[in-house]
């Protein structure tokens, strides 16, 4: 499905030189919230094709870390590099590579599932090879294309939000508890989506309290401790 | 901790006659949403000391069922009885017995955790034996009493919302995915809270996509199929 995609080739070129710079590199991050240092000296890196889990108890700073990586929150110290460059300096370029799913879904209640995906595609780097309808099908929402999101259940909304990631050409997925509200079949579906994404040289950072069974998760999870 | 509680005795009296009416009885419920019948002919009952799971895929109607049991949504057909009486006819009395935790937390962002619990206690039937502070401690939020909820993480908020149930004397807990956003220790904590509640002759209806390991779950889950 992904073959003959334009973006595919650029992914591949990075993968062909495994000794190259890691695509995402985080160095010496520190952030303080509510007078409490959530983490400091946090460094890790991510190569193409890799997924990494972010683990920690409630309130340990997973969401905060992921939002820093999106560029929403500025860390008190440290830098995030994308292909060797500070993301603050190349914001739009970096943002073209990032797909984010947060605690909030980022889809509009008043639009249908399909319309939401069309908007998401237009706002990001649209993929010519995956249509909005196909994306909805892949998250198990075929048949709900024309339902307003308002009248969907919690898990169905989460699925629509996940489908957003499929219609754009983002190489780095930042997923904050993507399994929330999904039934067991939904969880399996998301896992296989992530696998496929990594197999196509994508990357994923996933925070989750669920036990995740991904083969592409290479190194040990990033542990945030309180 | 629960002994010598006033309400305790009334719970016990119901439990001492196991052949008595079930406390909660649902008969022949039907509801249609979006031109689709979610469930029809749904009947079940719940006795003191019992917990029951509500299972079903995303969009199968779990939340809708639980909201009907709270009296928020009127079913298209069927009745919910509490101790043999239609809940629509005894609203305030019934509501005194119900503790609800939905997808939304029902706690105020701008208040501290402690203040939120004090409000919850005053709005419900306050328990003289469990103070707001004790409740926070039991959900693992000791030390965050005076933090505004706004600055808490997703899981921490969920814990505060759970603590609401502990400060009022509600016999029937209606929990919609109570494990959402909790870490594994949090999940264990909630399970033991439910066990304790049922041991004190309470009841619980729980929808969850997590595998739940509760000894008080007597009968088979209520299955909602699409």
């Amino acid at each position, binding site marked *: 499905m992904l073959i003959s995609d334009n973006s595919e080739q650029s992914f591949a070129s990075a993968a062909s030189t495994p000794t190259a710079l890691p695509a995402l590199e985080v160095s010496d991050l520190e952030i303080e919230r509510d*007078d409490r240092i959530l983490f400091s000296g946090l460094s890790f890196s991510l190569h193409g094709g890799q997924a990494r889990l972010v683990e920690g108890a409630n309130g340990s700073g997973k969401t905060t870390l992921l939002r820093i990586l999106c560029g929403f929150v*500025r860390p008190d110290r440290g830098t995030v590099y994308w292909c060797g460059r500070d993301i603050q300096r190349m914001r739009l370029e970096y943002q073209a590579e990032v797909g984010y799913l947060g605690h909030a879904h980022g889809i509009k209640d008043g639009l249908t599932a399909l319309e939401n995906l069309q908007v998401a595609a237009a706002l990001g780097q649209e993929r010519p090879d995956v249509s909005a309808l196909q994306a909805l099908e892949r998250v198990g929402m075929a048949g709900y294309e024309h339902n307003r999101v308002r009248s969907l259940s919690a898990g169905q909304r989460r699925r629509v939000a996940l489908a957003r990631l499929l219609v754009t050409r983002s190489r780095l997925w930042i997923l904050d508890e993507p399994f929330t509200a999904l039934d067991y079949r939904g969880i399996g579906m998301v896992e296989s989506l992530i696998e496929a994404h990594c197999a196509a040289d994508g990357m994923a950072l996933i925070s989750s309290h669920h036990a995740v069974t991904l083969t592409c998760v290479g190194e040990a999870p990033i542990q945030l401790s309180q | 901790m629960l002994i010598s509680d006033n309400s305790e005795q009334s719970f016990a009296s119901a439990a001492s006659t196991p052949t008595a009416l079930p406390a909660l009885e649902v008969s022949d419920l039907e509801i249609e949403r979006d031109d689709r019948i979610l469930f029809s002919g749904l009947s079940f009952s719940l006795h003191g000391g019992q917990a029951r799971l509500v299972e079903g895929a995303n969009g199968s109607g779990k939340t809708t069922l639980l909201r009907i049991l709270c009296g928020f949504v009127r079913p298209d057909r069927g009745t919910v009885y509490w101790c043999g009486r239609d809940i629509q006819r005894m609203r305030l009395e019934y509501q005194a017995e119900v503790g609800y935790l939905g997808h939304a937390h029902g706690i105020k962002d701008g208040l501290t955790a402690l203040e939120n619990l004090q409000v919850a206690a005053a709005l419900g039937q306050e328990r003289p034996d469990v103070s707001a502070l004790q409740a926070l401690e039991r959900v693992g939020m000791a030390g965050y009493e005076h933090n*505004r909820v*706004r*600055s808490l993480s997703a899981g921490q908020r969920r814990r505060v919302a759970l603590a609401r149930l502990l400060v009022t004397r509600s016999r029937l807990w209606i929990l919609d995915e109570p494990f959402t956003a909790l870490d594994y220790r949090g999940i264990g904590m909630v399970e033991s809270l439910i066990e304790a509640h049922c041991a004190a002759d309470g009841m619980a209806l729980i929808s969850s996509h997590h595998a739940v390991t509760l000894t008080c779950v007597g009968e088979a889950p209520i299955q909602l199929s699409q």
Partner: protein
Amino acid sequence: MWLFFHKLGSPKHFYQLAGRMIPWFAWACALLMIAGLIGGLVLAPPDYQQGDSFRIMYLHVPSAWMSLFIYVTMAVSSAIALIWKMKMADIIAACSAPIGASFTFLALVSGSLWGKPMWGTYWVWDARLTSELILLFLYLGYMGLLVAIEDRRNAARAGAVLALVGVVNVPIIHYSVQWWNTLHQGPTVTKFGQPSIAASMLIPLLLMGLAFTLFYMTMVLIRARTAVLTQERRSQWVRELIEHHE
């Protein structure tokens, strides 16, 4: 020069430097204020039209100037804070707002007290008076925004954007007298060429203006020092400072 700014930008150095400067500013302010008041209230002759009521001018005009000057200062430091991410500039802007609001209030009150003998009413909806009132709202809005946003850093950045946007109103206030022909005094002091006001009245006015400026600087530095301490309370040097005190 750059080094100086760099040092100013570091909270620790700012704290020490401000500590040394405050007494100087305070004393200079006191001296000028006394000189200005004597010059204005005692030495200057009564106005041939207004009698002695014109002496409110020595309060009104400098505070009106300050109300504008401080807003511009806030906007400039906000720009510095946004562009060079200098922590101290944010603090200066935030600390200036209440002072500026007070001066604006003072200008409004003294102006309307002056208005009663001059125009026969405390208040008219003339362009300059109204725009000064609007300036007060700008200050209050800025302060409201700062307290409403809980995260300190976000509040500072949001305030900076607002201050920059609001600064467009300052020229409107300043030129409102020319644009609309109104009751309020046109520029008398700041007019190019020779000012249309007698030197014996002008000099005390200028002295008062200077004194007010120094007063503002003293107050800002004091407030900023406190703000620095609260903000940096967990840093090494503040801890040492506190231990030193105990």
